[in-house]
């Protein structure tokens, strides 16, 4: 990261930004208001594109000179040619798509590498919450009730490890982190118990 940056990125986005090679082609799916893309275009000279569902997000991105398509991960990845991006980013969205396995495969078809972050449903507070209350957990990270949450496919860190392994992708980097963006120990089972979130950098075998 550059020192002179006046508007620092959210810690989890900064973590993603650190993994992006300068001058690469990047697709940010669910790019929100374009904070990460804008940072990458400005500081790493990437050729950045975004996909965003909200009109407000799209408008803000476009006003900042970013190229963003209104759409979502379930419906709008199919048209991109194979390996057309160096990095495809899916930040805290995998649990909200209709078909996570298809989306995961699409990410690694379109991108040479994929960066995925997920909220971890295996974190101890979540487990305790379910154990003690007997109701679907509502925590700070997962702050909606079962009937109005966008998150329809929750998984734990270990669950995602399983899917990645099953589909034969290689994990270049695994970074579990808590809600302040601080990294926790990377031992899988430990991370699955302690981390609020996790980041995976994947590539095809």
């Amino acid at each position, binding site marked *: 990261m550059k020192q002179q940056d006046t508007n620092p990125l959210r810690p989890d986005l900064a973590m993603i930004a650190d993994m992006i090679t300068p001058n690469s082609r990047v697709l940010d799916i669910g790019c929100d208001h374009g904070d990460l893309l804008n940072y990458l275009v400005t500081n790493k000279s990437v050729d950045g*594109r975004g996909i965003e569902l909200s*009109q407000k997000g*799209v*408008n*803000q*991105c*476009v*006003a*900042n*000179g*970013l*190229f*963003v*398509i*209104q*759409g979502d991960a379930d419906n709008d990845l199919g*048209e*991109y*040619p194979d390996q*057309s991006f160096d990095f495809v980013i899916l930040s805290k969205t995998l649990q909200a798509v209709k078909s996570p396995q298809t989306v995961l495969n699409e990410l690694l078809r379109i991108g040479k590498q994929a960066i995925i972050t997920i909220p971890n449903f295996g974190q101890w507070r979540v487990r305790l919450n379910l154990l003690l209350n007997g109701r679907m957990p509502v925590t700070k990270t997962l702050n909606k009730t079962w009937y109005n949450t966008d998150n329809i496919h929750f998984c734990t860190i270990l669950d995602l490890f399983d899917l990645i392994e099953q589909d034969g992708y290689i994990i270049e980097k695994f970074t579990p982190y808590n809600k302040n963006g601080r990294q926790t120990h990377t031992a899988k089972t430990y991370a699955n118990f302690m981390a609020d979130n996790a980041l995976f950098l994947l590539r095809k075998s």
Partner: protein
Amino acid sequence: MTVSQYNQTILFEDTPLSLDCGADLSPVTVAFETYGTLNLDRSNAVLICHALTGDQYVASPHPTTGKPGWWSRLVGPGKIIDTEKYYVICSNVLGSCLGTTGPSSINPATGKEWGLGFPVITIRDMVKVQAELIQQLGIETLFAVIGGSMGGMQVLEWLCNYPERLTSAVALATTARHTAQNIAFHEVGRQAIMADANWNGGQYYQVEKSPNKGLSVARMTAHITYLSEDALTQKFGRNLQERDKVTFGFDADFQVESYLRHQGMTFVDRFDANSYLYITRAMDYLDIAARYNNRLAEAFQRAAHVRCCVVSFTSDWLYPTAENKNIVHALNASGVPVSFAEIESPHGHDSFLLDLPEMDKMIAGFLNSCARSAGLRAL
């Protein structure tokens, strides 16, 4: 705002315009309006392409109807397409009837109106004429080409044929090909015109009577396709027109009937029936991908440097979101930087002409960012 009104220029005098149908046309008169001032390095020109029955009066009153320019909401000093910053050009398309050569113009070979002797034209032919006009105006590269509906089709043809002369492009509520349904509606309109006895095989210019009934029915049909069921229901419902109950006759009992009749009747005052035939035909013939092995992406391969913006509207069933997204996917696949949004609107296809703040924000944001990146400043 500096407005240059009622310009007409004669093009293709020495080298005729070679049309897609194989015919040559010479000369071609083009009528156009300009707004604002061309900057010193000639980098601030914006070409606005009008729709089927549109005209060059994008930001100044229409000489026949006296109505304000059709996009004066967006084009003008301090507006989104800011005439204090951009030099805006809007020309009447080839085949139309407001000063540019079309079927109602005089055929130099006969000294009479062309009528159906006028060659069949395409959207690409229209764009060829625009490109020639731009060149004659001394403009090498357009800052932007912008258009909705048939205007958007012209934007796409610019992207395929003259990408090196573009910096950015905005296409609204459009399509890269006419579907069977699009052609079907146009055919109803054309048949209505040709079924009018006054049409007389296209030869009606020398007599008192024009095929106004036919043209007005064509307009009525088309007008329905520009709206949406919700828009019609909201505006008219089953409301009766100045009466308490139905009359058990064929008078305009319903407000919607009266509205459509009015649309049809006023249209004939400002439009030529033969022009309507030729321009709808040009739209029907549009199938850009067909010229590129049925792969639309190949059409845009030389346009990777052009910044693009495509907008569709939720209630537009004439050129629905799927058709606009087709364009976006093709642009993307060719590596063209493109932004896209589907704007929420109940107004149907005509949405692009109406007051929709989210559309405005999108276009404004896009043009401003393009201007910044091109180093364009207010004059």
